[in-house]
Every structure is written in C-alpha cells, then in structure tokens.
C-alpha cells in the first residue's frame, strides 16, 4: 500500500502525563514571555495574592494609631499618609486586601462552578432540561443585583468574606451559564464530539475531557472578569456605607476618606482616598493583562508556536 512518508522527528514518543504537564507549563511560560505586559499582569496578581495571604501576618490585629499624626499626607514614614485615627494607610490597604480578595475568590469559584455546570448540562442535554434551566437563568438575570444587595445588607452583616463571596457568587452566575451553554451548543456539533459518541465514550469523558478543555480559555476569562466584578460590587457596598464598618476594607476606607476625613476638601487626606483606589486599579489592570494571555495558554496551537 502507499503510505504517506513522514519525516522522522527527534524526541517523539514522549507521551507520559508528567511530560505533558511539563510541556504545558513550558508553553505557558512561552505565552507569558511573548508580551511583557502579560508578565507584568501576572506579577501584579501574584503580588496581590501574596499580600492577601501573608500581608496581615506582619501587622497586629488592631493597627496601632498615632494620636500625633492624624490624617497626614504621604511622607517617607507613611507612604500613603495616615487615617483620622493616625493609622498607616498602607497597612490598612494590606490588611484589608484579605477580605476583598478572599470574597472575590469565593465569588469567582461559585460563579464558575455554577455557571459552567449549569451551562454545560443545559447545552449538552438540550430538550426539556435546557428550557427549564434557561428560564431559571433568565429569571435570575432579571433580578437587579445592587438593590437586592442593599436589601440583604439590612438583615445580614456580611462580617465574613465568605458570606460576601457567597452572596455575590449566587447573584453572578447567570451570565456565565448562558455563555457556556452557547459554547457547548456550538461545540457539540463538531466532528470530534460526534466521533466520541460514536466510539461509545461516556458522557463524563465527553464533557470533562473533550468539551471542557476547549472551553477553558473562555471559562478562565469569565472567572477573572467575575473577580473584578466582585471587587467592584463589595467595595461599592462598603463605600455606600450600607454595611457596618466592622472590618478593614478598601470600601470602608474610601467611605471614611470621603465622609470622615474630608478627602474631597482637604489635601491631607488625599493619600487615604487614593491608596484603596490605586489598589483596585492595579488589581483590575493585572487581571486585564492576564486575560489577554488566556486564549493562547489554552489553545495548543497558539501555545506551541
């Protein structure tokens, strides 16, 4: 018979799982290196995670206030100045980051797990289940988020970041579910899914091994965007002051800076106002820069080249 002649390649046949994983991370590194901005984004994100995990350990539970240095502008001693109780603003931002990021992470997790799960199920099963689930999703999408949060805040104090994340997550999965469903519907018509069904592969395999990896960039992007959304939402709530000032929080800082320290009228409190804003801005920037790399990380073609 006439076999196609294939040029010999060196290093072929290496196909164990660990080698594949190594190749994957090497590919990720290649993608990140391609644009310096992505590396910067990754560094920013890693920095924030580090700050949230370890930052609070460097400070006592109750930050010491300096009664002689109330609402000071930035200086060498206090990089972003001090608050009306004489506490260091930078220390406040760092200790506050844990609440913000932890709740954002919980939100992202719930959004992605719920949204992806429902979207996949709906898109893959189609038929009656799909109709019911999508009606539920539509209904959920019509619930106005902010007013509901305001109402909830009157009965629930959101003292723990987990509670906050849970509520935001349960409010936020609708969009992801719809998007994932649309992706599933288009992917399931592709030849390789049909082939998998024809080969008798299980639904679990088809969803987990064939569909999910193809949607990974999409899901990862949605997750990062959900993080941004969650940060804005909770900071907004605290800023509006509908939640008690129980914890160190960027939103609480903004609120105090504006309404207590008078950052709008006195330049002394400017650092107090700018520090949390800058933190939010940096975090968003980091996420946006990293999102840019997602497509290439999860697409083997773009990753390898």
């Amino acid at each position: 018979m006439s076999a196609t002649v294939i040029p010999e390649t060196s290093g072929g046949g290496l196909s164990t799982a660990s080698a594949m994983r190594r190749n994957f991370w090497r590919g990720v590194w290649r993608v990140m290196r391609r644009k310096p901005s992505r590396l910067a984004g990754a560094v920013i994100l890693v920095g924030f995670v580090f700050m949230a995990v370890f930052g609070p350990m460097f400070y006592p539970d109750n930050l010491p206030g300096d009664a002689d240095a109330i609402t000071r502008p930035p200086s060498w001693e206090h990089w972003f100045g001090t608050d009306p109780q004489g506490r260091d603003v930078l220390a406040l931002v760092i200790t506050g980051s844990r609440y913000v990021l932890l709740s954002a992470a919980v939100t992202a997790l719930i959004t992605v797990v719920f949204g992806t799960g429902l979207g996949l199920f709906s898109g893959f099963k189609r038929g009656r289940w799909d109709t019911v689930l999508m009606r539920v999703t539509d209904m959920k999408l019509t619930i106005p988020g902010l007013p509901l949060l305001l109402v909830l805040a009157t009965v629930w104090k959101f003292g723990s970041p987990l509670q906050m994340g849970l509520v935001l997550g349960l409010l936020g999965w609708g969009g992801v579910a719809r998007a994932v469903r649309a992706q599933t519907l288009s992917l399931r018509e592709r030849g390789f899914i049909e082939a998998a069904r024809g080969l008798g592969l299980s639904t679990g395999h088809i969803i987990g091994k064939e569909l999910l990896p193809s949607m990974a960039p999409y899901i990862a992007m949605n997750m990062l965007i959900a993080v941004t959304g969650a940060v804005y939402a909770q900071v907004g709530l605290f800023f509006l002051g509908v939640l008690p000032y129980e914890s160190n929080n960027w939103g609480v800082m903004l609120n105090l800076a504006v309404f207590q320290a008078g950052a709008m009228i006195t330049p002394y409190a400017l650092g107090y106002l700018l520090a949390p804003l800058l933190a939010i801005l940096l975090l968003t920037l980091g996420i946006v820069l990293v999102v840019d790399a997602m497509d290439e990380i999860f697409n083997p073609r773009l990753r390898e080249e």
Partner: protein
Amino acid sequence: MAQPETAPPQMAPAPVPAPVTPAPGVRIDGLTVVYKTSAGELPAVRDVSLTLEPGSITGIVGESGSGKSTLALSLLNAVQPPGRIAAGSVEIDGLGDVVGLAGERLRKARGAHIGYVFQAAQNSLNPLKTVGKQLLDLGRSHDVDDLRGLVREAKELLGRMGLDGARVLDSHQHELSGGMRQRVGIMLALVLNAHLVVLDEPTTALDMITQANILKIVREVHAERGLTTLVITHDIGVVAEVADRLAVMYGGRLVEQGPTREVLGAPRHPYTRGLIQAIPRLVGDIDEARALPGRPPTLATVPERGCVFRERCALRMDICETDDPAALADGPRIVACHAVGAKERT
C-alpha cells in the same frame, strides 16, 4: 506595452454602448511574493513568469499552499500584508505594470479592467443587502453615471446565464442556491465591462451538474464578450474542461505550462505526471491510479534552495538539491525540471 498609459476618462466604464475593446494580454515576469512570518520573509510565489494571451483561457492548477491564489491576487496588486510583492512585474494591456499602481487608480482598475470572482462566491455577497443594492453600490463606487444602464446590463448578463435577472436582483444571498450565487459573482465581475477575468476556484463546493453548467457558462461568456480569462483551481478536471492553456504550480513555483491537451496527454514534469496518474478514472484498470508519495510543502517547509518538488520526486538527481531548475521553453511548452531538461539536451 503598446499603450502603457490610458487616460483616466477612458477608464470610466460606459455600460451603454459597450465599446468592443480587445481582450487584454497579461505578462507576468519574474514575480515573487513574500509573506512575513516569525521565521523571516518566506516566498509564497517565487520567480513566476506567465503570459496570458489576449482572448485565451488559462488555468492554474495547484494544491493548497502552492501559491496559486496569491498569484491571482497579484494580478490585482491586492496581496494583503503581511504579504508583499517583492520582485517582478505584472503588465496588463491598457493598464501598464499593476505592481506600480496604488490608491485610487488601482481601485478603479479593479472591477473596470479586471473582474475577480472570489473563491466561494457565497462569501463575497453581503447577506444584508439585495443583489441589486450591491450592484448599485458597485456602480457608484466606480462613478457610473448611468445606473439604469448598469442594471439593464446586469439583467442581460444574468439572463444570459439562465437566470431571471429581475428576480435575482431583488433577492438576498440566502435566497439563492450555490450555483446562482456563483452566477451572480460572475455577473458582478463582468458588469463593469472588465475584459480580464480571474475566477478563483469557481466550482468548489458546487454539485457536479451545477459545476458542469458553470463551466459551460464560463466558456460561452468568455467567447461572446471577448475576454482574457484566468481560472485558478485545485481540480485538473475543471481546467481540462475550460482552459486552452494549463499552468501547474507547486511550492510557489510554476513547474510546467503549455497547451492543455498537450500537457494532459503527455505531461513532462514529474509532479504533473504524478498528479494526473493519481486521478481515479471511470474506465480501464482502476489500479493504474497511483498515489503521489510524500506531501505538499507549506510556506515554512519549502526548501530554500534547489527544486521544490525533489522530496517527492522519482527522478531526483544530485543537482536538484542545490540548483533551482530554470523554466525552459520547448515550443509552446515550458517545464522547470533538471531531469526533463537533461533528457532534451541529449
């Protein structure tokens, strides 16, 4: 060459009295088109020389990556970045060297002088507008004063191709079948009175019977309107059916050209020979069909030096590794192969 510069007023199409301009000849000389990639600039078309005689139908056959579509785009000077024409010239009678044209003059030349029927005509129609609206857009962008005349001409062309002109002009793309869209594509290419027509894969994705009809129309319209036609395809059958002259491309090079019947009847280049032998036939011993070994090169794997076909060639010699075979003419036939050249000399 006889009329290197044409005055702009003459270029504006006058649809009503349709002056019988003679079919233009085209001389492509030493054309090289390169694409910028991460590995540097790679040639998609390398040192191609081809003459389209006035009034002839020429067919270019090639596989994916052979550079045939890039060559066709060069005729319009429409190679898109990251590609660019690196060397050579494309002389079209009445237009001069197209490679030097730019801006407004180039835009006007397309359509008015050169009609182009794109690959898969369904993609070249706007799904949101009726065919008639698109025809008027085309007329306006070429400053046609007599739009009524343009519509009349379009209806006549469509009628000639066996369609109800008025109905087709009122239709959206999705209301037309593949064969009808292809006819609309041909109409749009010809309605501005172009006399040089390029058809890129005119029958891909069409059914056999529709394909036969379209090819018949191409032949007839070509003769009736006095055109110079270039057909680009991967299908030797299509070329065999319509073309007077056949040119075979491989890896960016023109490896063989000549009168269609002669090339098909007695192919000289090993690639042409292999290609023809790989066509299963309807009669005779079916096992005479032989597959070509190896696979066609891509932009990245085309060898920098030597013959582009040597990897798959049975007649390969030492010289093929190092020297690009020159395109040698023997009467109307041109072949670029060391092995064939050697045989002829002895």
